[in-house]
Structures are given as structure tokens and as C-alpha cells.
């Protein structure tokens, strides 16, 4: 028997419909979550599935741009996404996330009013995001290496790095600054500029300040310090509180004897808060609400904090958080430090362009 071309084409024609049929499958008892990698308790998802019978697809991302590009492109199929507070407002404007119906979130009362107050700076009334984990922006020092060079330095003051005399002494052990808007924010606060007001003149001052110490700065980086800190490649790293904890854990795991200290600048610094948000075109809205409620149960969220060692936004969970974590002031800051934190307002396109130009000018040297 011979197969003719016509027969072959006829037989394969239905294949063309496959992509449509794949996407038209009905939503079953499922939930699709998109979250930062290593950002949840070990058994949290398994427990949730066991209790509710919901099948959870838990996808992870490794960088904010990766996740933001995917969410902006749309039609992701996700129901719940881990979104950073700083850019939340832009994504709400773009229609990516749905408003939270607080009536369906009875456990909302467990959240910490202090964190909710900061988070409200990102989206009024916290209408679109459920605060999950939070922390600060600051400086991580390799204390031994820094004290050998600057015995009397006040590590809570940014003079330690932005005063050229100090920076020159620290240059040989390695200074790394954030390759991120947060750098501009801490410098603006350091210079006493009003928050959230951007202009060419302000940016010029910021650039000038960092340029004075530019020759002493080894790199600008937002992730590789997790390697360079334990390696003793860097002794001064501008980063986020959670990364400090991770770097310290990695050094310990590698058996490296290293004394790291994390400090939030006295001149105030931006807080970061990661939220769980509901995706507008998610198909499993009911399950998504069940999940958010579950993640606000004190025992559940405490287990997450005990595992990943980030401060959570759940006041009622403190009873269940390990003492060592709760008493670590780099994870749960003291009242004084908490008062230094603020939530930067979201940026207009023009502001963002000003900030990016300033960062590029600083990096160019």
C-alpha cells in the first residue's frame, strides 16, 4: 500500500488544532503559583495539598526581571504570584493583578500593622498585595577585614564608604555596591534629600557623591555577592538583609571562618516587602484565596520563616518562630532600625529614566 501526499496531509490536519485544545482544558482543582526560588517552608505546599486536596503547581524564578517580563507579557496561567512591593503599583496599573477581597481573607487580622503601614506606601490600603516576607537595604561588612583597616569606623554611618578617605583604606579588600535603584535611594537619604523627589539636580548630586569614591569600588552587583562575601573577595557589600543571612549561612556551610555584620544606615534606607498577589486572568480564584488564607496561618508562616530565615509580616506567628531567628536583629530589626525604613513610592517613567541614567553614569566611572 502506498500513502499519497493527499492522504498524509488529510491525516495530519487535525494536529493543527492541538495548541487550541491544550489551552481549552477546564480548570480542575488546581492552583498555579509563581514564586521566588527557595522562598517557602520545606513542607508548606505538600501540607496545603494534603489539607485541601488542591493540586499545586509551584514554579520558581531567580530574578525580578525574569518574573516581571513574564507577568507583563500576560497569559501566564498563574493564579498567585510573589511580587516585590516596589514595582507593585506599576503592575496594578498595567492590569496584571486583581484587587484582594479582604472579606475572603479572615486571617488578614494576623498581619503586623507596622509592616502593613510600610506596605501601604506601595499600594494604598494594601488592596492588591498580601505582605509575605520583608526586610531592609543596608551594608554587610566582613568585620575582621574592615576593623583591620578602619578600627574606629561607625558602621551604621554611610561615611564609612562614601568618605573618600575611608573608601581608599577599604578599597583593597573590596567594595561592592548594589546595581539597583536602592543604591540611589540610600545615597539620596545620605545626602538628606527629600524622599521620592527626583530631578536632574538631585541625581547629579548623587552621581557626584558616589563618583568621589568610584575608583575604590570594585563592582556593582545585585546577586554575586552571595559568592564573593564567603570567598573574602569583598569586605563591604551593599545588599539586602536576606542576602546577608544567606551569605553567612553559605560561609558556615563551606566551613569558612568569617565574621559578617549587617547594618542599616542611620540616614534611613528603603524597606523591601514581597507580596502575594492574585493574577487578574487566573482561573482558580477560589483556590488562590484558600492559599493566601493558609499562608497567613501563624504556624504555617512561622515554619517558612524558620526555614528561609526572613522576617514575615505576620504578628501572630511570632510565638512559633524559633528564638534564634526572632532575636536576630538583622532578621527582625529593633524598633530604632525599623524607624529608619521607608517604602519608596513607585516611579514614573521619567523618574525611572533619571535614576537609570544616574546608575549608568556612576558605573561608567
Amino acid at each position, binding site marked *: 500500500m*502506498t500513502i499519497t501526499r493527499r492522504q498524509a496531509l488529510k491525516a495530519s490536519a487535525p494536529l493543527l488544532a492541538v495548541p487550541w485544545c491544550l489551552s481549552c482544558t477546564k480548570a480542575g482543582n488546581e492552583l498555579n503559583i509563581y514564586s521566588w526560588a527557595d522562598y517557602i517552608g520545606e513542607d508548606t505546599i505538600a501540607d496545603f495539598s494534603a489539607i485541601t486536596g488542591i493540586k499545586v503547581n509551584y514554579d520558581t524564578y531567580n530574578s525580578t*526581571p525574569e518574573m516581571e517580563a513574564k507577568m*507583563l507579557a500576560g497569559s501566564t496561567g498563574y493564579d498567585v504570584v510573589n511580587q516585590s512591593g516596589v514595582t507593585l503599583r506599576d503592575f496594578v496599573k*498595567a492590569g496584571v493583578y486583581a484587587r484582594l477581597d479582604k472579606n475572603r481573607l479572615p486571617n488578614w487580622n494576623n498581619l503586623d500593622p507596622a509592616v502593613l503601614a510600610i506596605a501601604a506606601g506601595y499600594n494604598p490600603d494594601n488592596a492588591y498585595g498580601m505582605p509575605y516576607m520583608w526586610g531592609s537595604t543596608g551594608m554587610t561588612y566582613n568585620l575582621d577585614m574592615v576593623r583591620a583597616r578602619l578600627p574606629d569606623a561607625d558602621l551604621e554611618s554611610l561615611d564609612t564608604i562614601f568618605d573618600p578617605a575611608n573608601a581608599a583604606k577599604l578599597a583593597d579588600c573590596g567594595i561592592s555596591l548594589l546595581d539597583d535603584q536602592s543604591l540611589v535611594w540610600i545615597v539620596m537619604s545620605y545626602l538628606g534629600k527629600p524622599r521620592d523627589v527626583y530631578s536632574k539636580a538631585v541625581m547629579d548630586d548623587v552621581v557626584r557623591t558616589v563618583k568621589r569614591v568610584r575608583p575604590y569600588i570594585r563592582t556593582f552587583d545585585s546577586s554575586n555577592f552571595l559568592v564573593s562575601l564567603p570567598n573574602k573577595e569583598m569586605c563591604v557589600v551593599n545588599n539586602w538583609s536576606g542576602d546577608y543571612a544567606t551569605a553567612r549561612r553559605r560561609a558556615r556551610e563551606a566551613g569558612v571562618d568569617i565574621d559578617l555584620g549587617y547594618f542599616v544606615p542611620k540616614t534611613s534606607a528603603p524597606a523591601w516587602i514581597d507580596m502575594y498577589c492574585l493574577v487578574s486572568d487566573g482561573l482558580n480564584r477560589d483556590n488562590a484565596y484558600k492559599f493566601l488564607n493558609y499562608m497567613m496561618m501563624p504556624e504555617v508562616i512561622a515554619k517558612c520563616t524558620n526555614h528561609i530565615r526572613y522576617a514575615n509580616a505576620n504578628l501572630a506567628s511570632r510565638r512559633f518562630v524559633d528564638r534564634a531567628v526572632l532575636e536576630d536583629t538583622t532578621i527582625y530589626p529593633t524598633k530604632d532600625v525599623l524607624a529608619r525604613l521607608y517604602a519608596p513610592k513607585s516611579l514614573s*517613567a521619567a523618574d525611572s529614566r533619571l535614576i537609570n*541614567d544616574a546608575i549608568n553614569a556612576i*558605573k561608567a566611572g
Partner: protein
Amino acid sequence: MKPAAWFDRRGWSDIIIGVPYAWAIVFILVPIVIVSALSFAVPVLNSPPYAFAQSWPYVSTGSFHRLFADSIYVRSFGVSLFNAGVATVLCLLIGYPMALGLTRVSKAANRVLLMLIVLPFWTSFLLRVYAWIGLMGTTSWFNRLLTSLYNVLVPQAWHVPHIQIMYTNFAVIFVVVYSYLPFMILPLYANLEKLDRTLDEAAMDLGSRPWQVFVDVTLPLSMPGIIAGGLLVFIPAAGELVIPGLVGNMADPMIGAIISEEFGLNHDWPMAASISVALLVVLVVPLMAYTRFQSRAEAGARG
């Protein structure tokens, strides 16, 4: 019916030849058209974050204007082309003798050596870069060894506590050369292996010295291999994103990092698209030069 007769019927051969064409159209041509169209859009705060102008001429060349208005783009193009160029030349200088050597050793040795060249591919590329980060770091044994050698060789006044290799443009070129060397060696080897060795003997008989044989016979005949290897190194090296991000110096960003920044951090898809289009134009020129060179060489061989 003869075994292959069914294939000779016109319809079947059309379908089979059509498959690679369809592949090229769907996965190469269509994406290029989409990216090109995107480069004429304007960024907006929406999902997806771009829009086309509502009135005639419906396109915006704003992104392309910015490409020249802000010096960072042209500068990073320069850095990319410089790094890729230097890396390609270094790969050629290191790879050519290795490829030539491969054709001159015994069959058994040849098999082992070829295996050794391909072997690094069995380890994750990222892992190999991280290994170099460990080696180049200021506190590593490798760096200490280099530093002590250097300090022995130079006068006291020039002594350094360590040599800064990480976070320099040198590190970028070095790791690119390390990563892409096999892509230079393999096409060169494939080309050199096919060369007729009797031509060398004939040249020797006519009084050429070994060096002259190389310059007059081997080198010109291996030009297609050099160009193929050169393009395989140059084009991906020019668009390299991971290596400069891990070991590079932030003052000299390569174009890949700028595209990723525009796309990811600034959510400016049209700008990212217009840089990609510009990069495509810059990289397509050498490719067209190559096809021209090759067709001319083929015409020469026939004529």
C-alpha cells in the same frame, strides 16, 4: 516500484524540503519580524508593555534616536565588538596550531585528543565559569601563585598584595576564549583534515621551506575553516550576557547586558528590540561577507 521511487514523486520531495524552510520561517524569520516591529513601538505601562502610535505613521523611531543620543549604547557596542574581536583572534592563535596538530598525530592519539576537546561540554557551562571565578579571586591559590611570581620578577616598588583579575575586562576576554575555543578548533580541524597532503609534498619538492608551505598552501586552503570558526566565536561572543555579568567590570558593559537591562529592569521592550535589531545588523554584515566569500571561492574552484 523501485525502493526510492515514491520519493521521486514531486509532492513528497516538496513536503520534505518544505520542512526546513518552514522551520526557518517560523523560528527565525517570524521572530525577527516581531522584534523589528517591536522596535518601532513605544513603551507604555500595560500588559504587554508596548503600544503602537494611533495615528499615521503608526511607528515611532524614538528608540533608534536614543540609540545614538545616549552614549552608553554606542560605547557598549564598541566594548562588545572589541571583546569579541580580541577573543576571536586569540581563539584563532591558540586553536589553529591545535587543529593542525590534530591532523598530524596518529589515529589513536587523534581520537583521544578530540575527545579531550569536547570533554568540557559535559560539564555545565555555568559551572566552568564559576570554577574560573574561584581561581581568579584575590584569595585563591591560583591568584597567590601569580602574585608571588609577579612580585619575584618586578622591583620592590611595584609589588602588589594581589593581582586584580576578577571584575576586569581582561577576565571577560579570558573566560570567553576559554569557553569558545572548541568552536574554533572543531570547524578548523574539519577543514584541515580534508586538505590534500600531497600538495604540501609537491610544494616541498618545488623547493618551498616548511614555513612557506604553510603560508602559501595550508593557510589559503584553510580560509573557509578560519572564517567558519571565527564566526562561530565572534557572533555569540559579541552577544555574550552571562560571562561579563559574572566576571566583568561594570564600567564597560557589553551590549547583551544593556539589552537585558532595558527589557527586564526598565520594562522598555521597544528599546531592547531596537538594540537587538542594531546588533543583528552589525552581526549580519560579517555573515553576508562570509557567504559572499564562500560563493566566490566555490566559483573559483569550478572555474
